[in-house]
């Protein structure tokens, strides 16, 4: 089994889904001949032809909107938005249509579509190429929101997203596209869309994160381990719906929790997780839940982004504070 990168795992899952189910259609800007600006759709044109993989005109709103139409007709469109900085024009279609077509029609029409988009910073990209807007989608009833943090999870979660009967926003951390590598078996097995993943077991505290920040979080766990602190690392993976039980199981055990994400702290998914834990696990909490996240500033351009992105050191410091708390 070869080691592949996260973007290759995406490619593998797309190819698998298209081979298994001819209603799966890939569309987006530059996805066909170009194979996607990150090569996520490379080779699909040759293999599946121009009726299964379509270059769309430059119109994100319509890409989302026509996917709703395709999905209502029984296709399973997997649309790519080239960067999450350009996903905002698709929000209207996601909120007002994709997420509610089923309930509006009491199940007569449904919307099994996936909107994929590379997200997050740390790749020294120009403005609008480094955003983490998952919280905006996680608030929308009727959507599922998924962010993988490793090639194997990318593969299994994307397959699950494509097979899911409802719309899924699938955000792929750009920073991990090539950096994350592991063996992935192309066995067509999906991962559950409603479970978090314990990536590292520990007993002193729980570090919760998702997406690219899993790297810094695991690094922080290493730093802490060197100090004799045993940190459990939980990858949320599916930020909507949240696996509250999974989180409670870990935090119930450790009693301390640091939540890490790249998006601005205010209104981020970390707030929701902290609120749920404070609601359900107040007795088990031995220390305040800390959030280590992006600041409430606009994502800066590359020359300042390292001051913006949470670092392993910041995470470890928060963990130490949580542990020091009496």
């Amino acid at each position, binding site marked *: 089994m070869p080691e592949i990168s996260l973007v290759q795992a995406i490619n593998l899952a797309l190819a698998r889904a298209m081979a298994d189910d001819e209603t799966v259609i890939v569309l987006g800007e530059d996805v066909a001949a170009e194979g996607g600006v990150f090569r996520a759709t490379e080779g699909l044109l040759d293999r599946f032809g121009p009726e299964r993989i379509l270059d769309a*005109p430059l119109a994100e709103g*319509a890409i*989302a909107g026509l996917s709703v139409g395709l999905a209502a*007709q029984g296709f399973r469109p997997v649309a790519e938005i080239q960067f999450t900085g350009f996903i905002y024009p698709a929000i209207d279609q996601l909120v007002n249509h994709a997420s509610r077509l089923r309930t509006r*029609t009491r199940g007569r029409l449904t919307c099994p579509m996936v909107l994929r988009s590379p997200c997050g910073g740390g790749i020294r990209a120009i403005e609008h190429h480094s955003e983490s807007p998952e919280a905006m989608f996680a608030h929308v009833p009727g959507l599922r929101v998924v962010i993988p943090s490793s090639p194997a999870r990318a593969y299994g979660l994307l397959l699950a997203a494509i097979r899911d009967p409802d719309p899924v926003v699938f955000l792929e951390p750009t920073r991990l596209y090539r950096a994350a590598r592991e063996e992935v078996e192309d066995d067509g097995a999906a991962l559950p869309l409603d479970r978090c993943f314990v990536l590292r077991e520990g007993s002193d505290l729980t570090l919760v994160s998702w997406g690219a920040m899993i790297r810094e979080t695991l690094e922080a766990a290493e730093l802490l381990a060197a100090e004799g602190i045993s940190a459990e690392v939980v990858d949320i993976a599916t930020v909507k719906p949240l696996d509250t039980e999974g989180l409670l199981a870990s935090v119930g055990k450790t009693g301390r929790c640091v939540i890490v994400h790249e998006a601005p702290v205010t209104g981020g998914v970390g707030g929701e997780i902290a609120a749920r834990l404070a609601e359900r696990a107040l007795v088990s909490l031995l220390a305040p839940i800390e959030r280590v996240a992006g600041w409430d500033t606009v994502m800066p351009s590359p020359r300042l982004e390292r001051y913006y992105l949470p670092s392993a050191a910041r995470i470890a410091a928060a963990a130490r504070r949580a542990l020091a708390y009496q």
Partner: protein
Amino acid sequence: MLVEKSDDKLIAATADGRADLPAVVAKFEIRRSRFLDPAGKPVRALPDFARDRAEMAALYRGMVLARSFDAKAVALQRTGRLGTFPSALGQEAVAVGIAAAMRRDDVLLPSFREHGAQLWRGVTPVELFLFWGGDERGSNFAQAREDFPICVPVGTHVPHAVGVALAIKLRREDRVAVCAFGDGATSKGDVAEALNIAGAWKLPAVFVINNNRWAISVPVAQQTAAETLAQKAIAAGFDGEQVDGNDVVAMREAVARALAKARAGGGPTLIEALSYRLGDHTTADDASRYRSDSEVSPHWAEEPIGRLRRYLVEEESWTKSDEEGLIDEVASLIDRAAEAYLVFPPPAPEAMFDFTYEILPRDLAEQRREALGAAAE
């Protein structure tokens, strides 16, 4: 560039040196069609379907049904038994012309002023009352199951039509997506994006602008500087045309022609149906705030039902008893529907949970339990 136009007021010949531009690289024109004048007189040879009295009577019935439905809906709203309702008074020919030209297995994507088309296609008046009464079950049509529900956010369903048409094209089916929207909708980016893609992909789609000249309080001349709305198609690289939208014969003919073209692989068409909103925007609106009676009243002479009735009386010996029979039949149909609507069992609160996802997430299942507990109290 505008080189010639029928309406003198709109001609704005510029004198800014453009004359020395050497090459004309493209010319476009917009045509307008009509078969029956406001008096119901044919202004040229009618299309074949018009030779069939039953067909013409059906068009007439479709419009009468739409207007009766409208009147009942307004009455229900006025008496507190229906939500805000947008009457299509005066625009019945647009909706009926569209639906009459379509095949059953074509897909209709309406805005909120095409109940005449929905009724023709088998959506029941009870379903429509339910929808406007604030009940999602009204969009779970028993017939026309692939048709889209009424779309409230203006213009946002037009991209859906592109997706439906793409699905049809990819499956090589002999069907067409038909999408209706208002004059105001033509200002929305969604519409421009959708038309452009439909053109680029040469999709089997027919787009109909239900131009009732107003978007709530904004007249079409304030909505755009475009001389016609049909020319929005020029930006998308396909044909646009104007039709007298108060002439149901012209509407049906133009839509049929566009459908045939789409089925033959000729791609999309944009039809601008020129009609007029004789009533308020909705039951929540008071149009006298922004337009005068003198602006409205001339348009009554153009309205489609009287026009077709005059034709039927003149050319098809439509009698008083034909008329009364129809009115009675339609009135009792609508009355029965209203009664059925009023006694329709209330929706179950759990429905809001059960249709949010196919697979109920665990946290939502918990909320469902809590909500049903609260509802039971």
